[in-house]
């Protein structure tokens, strides 16, 4: 899909737009390469994964829940392998898998109910001539609405009876011999498909709203007169601070890498403008001067790329120093992390060593002698051990480390935790 004249470089938005005219396989593959080429990274990954899994559910062929699960698993593990440095992808895949399992069990439970209900109905309905009806029956009898009825998307307001209709064909004795099984199958598949897709929409909404929800807790966390150190504020942190600024008067110290070369505008200029407009003072700080300011600071805030089940964090590099400094001075460290960033796994060796970026952020490639003589390791991510973190501020509210397990248990199913290992693919 060639976008406008101005930009040819593929982006996530272009990919999402092109879903309709591409095959599923092509879309997945494009996303995989966007991930591999780092053209989609960070917070975009979660969104991208949810979008592509929605396509998998919508477009791929499957006849029962197990097939759907394996489709999602295989697509998900391909994505996760494409970007091992983005654990968020795995989280979204697990969420979707859990969602499918929930819907499926709901259906099965509904099934059991349905069989009872159906037999009730049958016994209540005086079917004088059962053999005459069958052709029309699926269309008229409320117990088994036709696929077209279901696809109108009215499930939300379904009554108990409608729910009964999405029966699992395998063990559906509902209407006896008169209803052909082949018709039952697409009906339930269809229903499950639209329910799962709705579920994925909800996950997408959650991802999109997470930042705002977290910002909603800002006035609880930030008190008037606070000195807040924001280390390399991400979009999440920016929203949080701006929201807080509308209610509180405080001072923000923005710490970031020293930008030596003549960047056109100082870092975080937009954020500072907005904060100043709201009457909040800002101080810009190079990260190497951070220690000196720590005694004045009341709290340190940054956002996480991922939170592991032990409470350890994957963060942009440098945040660890800020966290350690704060820990030394007993200042609270608040981490902003939406629930979808919680990973039900422990950090791997690779993660704790940090991802390596392009050395050109520290040494210009034009600096010949340095390029020859130095080997520059630019770690772009840090791992922060759990003991340095005081508050995990999620979109569901502030948490401590001891309660992370319950969040994980609420959101993921144990059978999905190792989803990418379940497929023996190389």
């Amino acid at each position, binding site marked *: 899909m*060639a*976008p*406008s*004249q*101005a*930009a*040819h*470089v*593929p982006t996530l938005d272009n990919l999402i737009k092109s879903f309709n005219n591409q*095959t599923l*396989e*092509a879309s997945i*593959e*494009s996303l995989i*390469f966007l991930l*591999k*080429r*780092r*053209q989609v990274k960070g917070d975009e990954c979660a969104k991208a994964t949810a979008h592509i899994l929605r396509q998998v559910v919508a477009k791929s062929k499957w006849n029962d829940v197990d097939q759907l699960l394996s489709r999602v698993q295989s697509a998900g593990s391909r994505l996760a392998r*494409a970007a091992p440095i983005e654990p968020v992808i795995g989280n979204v895949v697990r969420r979707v898998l859990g969602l499918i399992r929930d819907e499926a069990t709901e259906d099965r439970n509904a099934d059991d109910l349905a069989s009872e209900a159906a037999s009730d109905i049958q016994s209540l309905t005086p079917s004088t001539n059962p053999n005459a009806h069958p052709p029309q029956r699926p269309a008229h009898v409320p117990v088994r609405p036709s696929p077209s009825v279901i696809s109108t998307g009215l499930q939300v307001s379904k009554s108990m009876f409608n729910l009964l209709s999405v029966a699992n064909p395998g063990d559906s004795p509902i209407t006896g011999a008169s209803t052909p099984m082949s018709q039952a199958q697409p009906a339930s598949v269809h229903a499950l498909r639209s329910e799962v897709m709705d579920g994925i929409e909800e996950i997408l909404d959650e991802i999109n709203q997470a930042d705002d929800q977290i910002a909603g807790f800002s006035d609880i966390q930030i008190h008037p007169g606070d000195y807040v150190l924001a280390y390399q504020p991400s979009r999440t942190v920016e929203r949080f601070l701006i929201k807080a600024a509308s209610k509180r008067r405080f001072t923000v110290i923005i710490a970031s890498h020293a930008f030596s070369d003549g960047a056109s505008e100082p870092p975080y200029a937009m954020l500072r403008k907005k904060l100043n407009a709201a009457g909040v003072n800002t101080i810009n700080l190079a990260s190497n001067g951070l220690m000196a300011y720590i005694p004045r600071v009341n709290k340190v805030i940054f956002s996480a790329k991922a939170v592991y089940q032990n409470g350890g964090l994957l963060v942009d590099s440098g945040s660890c120093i800020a966290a350690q400094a704060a820990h030394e001075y007993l200042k609270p460290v608040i981490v902003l992390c939406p629930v979808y960033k919680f990973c039900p796994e422990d950090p791997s060796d*690779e993660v704790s*060593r940090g991802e*390596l*970026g*392009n*050395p*050109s952020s520290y040494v*210009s*490639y*034009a*600096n*010949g*002698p340095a*390029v*020859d003589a130095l*080997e*520059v*390791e*630019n770690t772009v991510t840090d791992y922060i051990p759990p003991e340095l973190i005081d508050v995990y501020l999620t979109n569901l509210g502030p948490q401590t480390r001891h309660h992370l397990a319950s969040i994980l248990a609420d959101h993921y199913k144990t059978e999905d935790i190792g989803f990418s290992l379940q497929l023996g693919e*190389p």
Partner: protein
Amino acid sequence: MSKQGGKGGAAAGKAKKPAKAGTDEKREDVLQAVILADSFQDRFKPFTLETPRCLLPLVNVPVIEYTLEFLASNGVQEVFIYCGTHSENIENYIHESSRWNPGSVISPFSSLEFIRVSDANSIGDFLRDLDKRSIIGGDFILVHGDVVSNIQLDAALAKHRARREANRDACMTVVLRSVGEQPHRAAKARGITPVFVVDPTTGRCLQYEETHPLQSGRYLNLDPAVFSHGQFEVRTDLVDCGIDICTPDVLALWSESFDYELPRKNFLHGVLKDWELNGKMLYAEVLDDGYAARATNLQMYDCISRDVLERWTLPFVPDSNLIHGQTYRRIKGGSYVEDHVVAERGTKVTQSAVGRGTTIKTGSTVWGSTIGRRCKIGKNVKIENSYIWDDAVIEDGASVVHSILGGSVVIGADCHIPEGTLISYHAHIASGVQLPSKPPARISVLSDNKQLADTDVSLVGKGGKGASYTVIADDEDSDDEDGADRDPAVLQSSLLYSLEGLNLSTSSISTLASDDEYDSDDDISLAGSLHAGDFGHARDRLSSFASDDAAKPDGFHNDAVHGLVDALRADDSDDFDGAKLEFMGLRLANNASDGAMRRAIAVAFVRRAAELLAPEHGALEPTKAAAEALTAKKGAAKFVKEVGVGGEGVPQQAEFALALQRALGAVKGLEPARAGALLAALLQQLYSLDVLEEEGILAWWADKRAAENEDMDALREKCRVLVEWLENADEEESSEEEDDDDED
């Protein structure tokens, strides 16, 4: 300009695929790219005897993958690939690749086509062919098949469009990467330094020149027109990454100039020089960040490999696993290792990439290297800075330093492979062999004509396989990018950047007049082109040339000799005037001395005559050959008289005779007896044509230099009969003989 208008219209009107015909607008939206997958160079030989350059593995990924991925990451939709040699290999590779195969749904390109040009000899031929095809709708990206880059072209494309909209004549943007003024490995490795004269405010390119360390002149002439631009920068700190954003006008320009071969040296230079005529404006986009380079030679290959391992090329690094089926992970020590690599306890692997299925036994160290798949590395092996391709076997105790080992190479136990060694596919070095370090060996099982070479046991040891591969410095059919510039190619063809072996020539840069200049030049050009392998010998003979020849500009000799030999060979025309004109032009252009001209002419005629002695050209007798060489073309004799001898004086004639003698001495493959006979015949023929006079020949006979060593003396002796005859000469006899010859 007018021509272009027609072309552009045609492109839109009869678009090749009806499905894509659409409107002009639609086609504008689709970004097209043209990949030149053949460079018509042989800098990667002996590896490119079997595999095209763009399929050579660079950190275990074929080079063309980097190029295609670069295009995909820039949202290119339609790709055309021009292949030359090994085109079927490249086509097979693409068709077998699940990602790039045009039929595959997952290909990021909407179309990918191969274009074969049967008679293409240069990049220019490709682009002229492209112009004829009318498949290019709008702006397109022209890249070589060996580009490694992570830059995003959006900004450059936008600027290019803005310029083109403002002025229709802004037709090309050259993407360049600045590497700073300090010494840089990428700048050093490229061999030739491009010099761009750029207007810093608009980015417009005003002049383009090339320099290299071995040229004699250290100065560039700025075009006076450059000064009318007010402000300009002369930049030599740029790496040319071979990425051009072009409008279809560029193709029209190529078509107009049928003799342009190289996109930079000919096209860019020429179009900028003739700006007044064509009115086209070319721009340079100088990037200060991002990575872009071309694997144009082995040193660049080395440099880019290191950059990839050090992650300058992110995201094109091993652990991105851009190729399907790759499973690289970064491990401690900055190495990248695929699954199923067995590194025994006690091995050290640092800053390297190791492919799947490779085993490294205990006690071995690997540093700064890439090792392909399924390699077997024995115990206590030391590998440093080397490139080892798939399936190689290195047995216990061997050491490999800064070398390239091709696929399936076997290195025996306790071998030592010194710096700069190139060992091509399937070669086998027996145990315990120490390869020579100066000059580093190039070993191949194939010879230049792709036949199996006879194994050289003294080099590869008993039980080994392969022979030394020599790059035959033959200008006639050289497809080297720098046909005229032999010297930089010498620099570029080895893995190590070194001026060491070329000391003689470098000294000639600093000392204007010295015998050395002549020496070094002839080592390479004269001896080389005449297949004279015995360099030392040739040098002995030649070292005493008069030093007035010394201040002779580079390249003149080669060009002149080839021009003349070609003219003498030409079957279709009897006319020598064209060659004469060309020769004089060359002379003026190079400001060649009389001595240089004399030498060039002598070499040319001797070469032609010697050629005629050879069986494939009729195995003429020396007398016939001499006559044929001198008289077959009208005006040749006159040319020799006027230009070659250059005057009536006896000393000049003697010099010319001496030059002939030396040229003959340098002809390889001619027995001394035959050479002597040929010399006598040539002298006689020249005498009878009134080119040389009796006094001249006798003066040569008396000259001490003509008998300075055994070989020269042997040649001279053969002429004794002639000289004695001349001394008692009878005019009528000679004229009679002349008539005979004329009838031939």
